[in-house]
């Protein structure tokens, strides 16, 4: 120990002797710069660390946007209006990367035709292209970013905390979401031919982005409305629903009275009609006569 101390002291002594030399100042400056740079890249968001990279991504996204999106959304994402005050495509300034990732990633965009409901379909862009588009739209104005895996994952919570999160998520879901998405998250009808999406196969990231950006006629559930933890809990609840066995029998799509009523009318009444026909149908007849009676 003493030996270590002595050698440290002697090192300090040597450094101290050189501290007034001209090269020392330059060295110190270099050291400071390197340290600051390293710390900055370690703690700053990843995108800022690769500013040049991001610029390339934005440029690539702009190219893709001009080809695939600008017809309806305008060449600078400003939206294209119609004569009567509606628009072909809304302005995308400020919708953020999350909206692009959701709309293009679930295949809703590019849209087949304008209408009340924009259905999901196989996506037209690769994830890299979607990232580029998202980077371009995010560069127009600040907006919600694409959530990270950690934002909606229950990893790192104890078993008890997970149970609590799922229970709280269920309460939040039943208060805020069931009016449109139904108690089992199976979606439901909306006015004028629209519908709320079925959530039973939707990826967690897209559920999160939908809450964040409010696609179509859906309300926003921004971070000030439902905190990120509350959103995570809702997603955890929806994932728990998927693992539940259908304890009460066939779910018939989980749509409640619509499919159950259809089943009762078609299958239930159909079977009863079948029995009525059977009761009234002629039985097999014999050509024989009963013994001892004449024809």
């Amino acid at each position, binding site marked *: 120990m003493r030996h270590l101390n002595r050698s440290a002291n002697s090192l300090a002594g040597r450094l101290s002797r050189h501290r007034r030399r001209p090269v020392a100042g330059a060295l110190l400056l270099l050291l400071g710069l390197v340290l600051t740079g390293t710390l900055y890249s370690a703690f700053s968001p990843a995108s800022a660390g690769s500013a040049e990279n991001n610029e390339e991504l934005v440029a690539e996204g702009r190219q893709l946007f001009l080809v695939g999106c600008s017809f309806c959304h305008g060449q600078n994402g400003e939206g294209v209006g119609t004569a009567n005050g509606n628009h072909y495509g809304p302005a995308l300034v400020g919708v953020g990367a999350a909206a692009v990732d959701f709309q293009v990633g679930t295949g809703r965009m590019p849209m087949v035709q304008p209408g009340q409901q924009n259905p999901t379909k196989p996506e037209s862009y690769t994830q890299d292209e979607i990232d580029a588009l998202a980077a371009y739209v995010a560069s127009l104005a600040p907006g919600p970013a694409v959530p990270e895996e950690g934002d909606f994952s229950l990893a790192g919570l104890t078993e008890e905390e997970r149970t609590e999160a799922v229970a709280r998520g269920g309460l939040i879901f039943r208060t*805020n979401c069931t009016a449109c998405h139904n108690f089992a998250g199976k979606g439901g009808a909306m006015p004028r031919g629209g519908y709320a999406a079925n959530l039973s196969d939707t990826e967690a990231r897209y559920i999160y982005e939908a809450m964040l950006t409010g696609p179509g006629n859906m309300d926003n559930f921004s971070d000030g409305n439902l905190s990120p933890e509350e959103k995570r809990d809702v997603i955890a609840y929806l994932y728990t629903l998927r693992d539940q066995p259908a304890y009460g029998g066939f779910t018939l799509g989980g749509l409640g009275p619509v499919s159950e009523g259809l089943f009762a009318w078609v299958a239930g009444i159909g079977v009863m009609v079948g029995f009525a026909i059977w009761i009234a149908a002629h039985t097999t007849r014999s050509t024989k006569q009963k013994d001892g009676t004449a024809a």
Partner: protein
Amino acid sequence: MSDHLPEKGHSLNGHPAEDEHHGLDPLEPDEPIQNPGLPAHVWRPTDVDPASEKRAERQIAAIFGLSSICAVLFVVAYFTLQTGDTHDTVLDLGASTVALGSSLGFALLLIGIGIIQWARKLMGDHEIVEMRHPARSSDDDREATLGILSQGAEESGVFRRPLVLFSLGGAMTFLLAPAVVLFRDLGPTPSQVEDDQDYPGAGLEHTVWDKGVRVVRDVVGTPIRPSDLEIGDLVNAEPETVFALDDEGEPILEGVPLQIAKSKGAVVLTRMDPKDNTPGKGREDWAVDGILCYSKICTHVGCPISLNERKTQHLLCPCHQSTFDLADSAKVIFGPAARPLPQLPLMVDDEGYLVAQSDFKEPVGPSFWERDNNGSTTE
């Protein structure tokens, strides 16, 4: 009655008797084709073949036997299959539910099937003719009945002594009074609730909302700043009172008063572009930066509403499709609701949270007998 029929000239097999009727009623047409009567009865195999009859008997007995087995299976399934948290499953369905339902269902169904089969195979199936009877009573019967009635009126003298008749009518009418008094006390009237109950917002006219009560998120109970909300946000909210604790950490409201406060105080909070909103007369300062607050209880029959279309600002009731325009004082634009949703006047308190300016200016929820329907503030 049936013994009248032969007199009218119809034999049992439906042949019209060709006697005096023919001359009396020229409108009754002659039968152009003689009624051939019923065809000869054709026997079933079970009627003529003893072996087939035995087989049908055994078959029906077997069906009833299966039904008994199903009933026993029901009892077995009831006691063996696990329910609750560690329930057994079969094909991802609850084993107990499936087993109980199908065994009881088949037990009943097989009894029915057995009876039908019994009737079809073994019970007599001879064709039988049953003639129709006229619905009108005979003239003798009608006269006798009328005679009894007029004799009764004559002997009791109801028409000669009107005083008795009218006093009887009066007595019957006064009998309504005890009924009214009894039925009235089946439940408290709204004014009795308001006078007798000491929790805040009792009765139909008022809710727990009051000046300075914070608007908090439902379920989590956190207060809301205007800056928390973006345009297009919809918050399902409650008055802070339902989550509030007193000095000893006990909830202020519990039990029935809590449920009443929650059910009547539920609101939806929405933020829209202030340019989109058309405030009603006298409601110009009820919104905070485009944040509007309405009762969540439908004015039709009281369903909670939060099915909102963001683009049109239309709030829909899922029960009967009443639609309210949130950008126009929640006026009804479709459906059976008769009145707009009551609006809660909002302001911001010293700490920057959204609070109510006052209670609702009109009762929330569906109409009721004592409601002053002229009190609505939107016109």
